[in-house]
């Protein structure tokens, strides 16, 4: 089956992104197609490479990045939600006149249309959040 995932909560604050990650992993392990993971609301904070969790804790952004590296998973961060919360890639930083960017490898910033398109294309769109 073809799956899409929506992550609506930030990492660490809420378990939703952990659960979404485990679900995504299970989707891939079972041989299904993972069409896209879309990050919205505080979920965009999953995509910062500047987070430094304690050494004995899981590194959520890195786990997502590794998934993208290994499986080519499309990790999309909503641009409007990202702008509000200070998540930038190189292009956005330049456009907004900011002095740096913090997006983690494997993530890309794009519009909400990517979420709707995932809803149209996927057999299942699974939402993780409150």
């Amino acid at each position: 089956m073809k799956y899409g995932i929506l992550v609506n909560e930030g990492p660490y604050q809420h378990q939703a992104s952990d659960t979404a990650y485990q679900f995504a992993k299970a989707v891939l392990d079972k041989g299904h197609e993972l069409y896209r993971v879309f990050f919205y609301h505080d979920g965009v904070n999953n995509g910062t490479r500047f987070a430094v969790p304690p050494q004995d804790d899981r590194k959520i952004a890195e786990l997502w990045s590794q998934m993208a590296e290994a499986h080519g998973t499309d990790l999309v961060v909503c641009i409007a939600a990202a702008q509000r919360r200070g998540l930038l890639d190189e292009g956005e930083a330049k456009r907004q006149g900011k002095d740096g960017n913090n997006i983690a490898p494997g993530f890309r910033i794009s519009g909400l249309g990517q979420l709707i398109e995932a809803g149209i294309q996927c057999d299942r769109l699974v939402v993780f959040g409150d």
Partner: protein
Amino acid sequence: MSEPWEEEGPGTVKKFMYVNRKAPYGTIYALESLEVVLIAAAFEQDVSMAFLDDGVYQLKKGQDTKGIGQKNFSPTYRALEGYDVEKLYVEAESLAERGLSEDDLLVPVEVMSREALAELMNEQEVILSF
């Protein structure tokens, strides 16, 4: 060889329901959910919105946000009609539990029982809950 999903071209119309369960202020869910609905309108899907739990407060008439320093975005719900988002469902039990009635709401809606709304949700192909 064509895969089943390849038949779902740009012309695919799915039943999308946006489920709004949170109060309009206090968290950003309601505002950002509305942003999704407005963007999604461009995709010309079969869209409906459901309001339940504290989500019914999103449609309350006479919202005044001066005291909390936030934008009152409730007039946007009146603009939904212009985006062809005309199916707004409000759960009767959630209204009653909060001492509200249909007259308290700022847009025309269809009030329906929890049971009927559950059936309607069952008929959807994509449910985005915020």
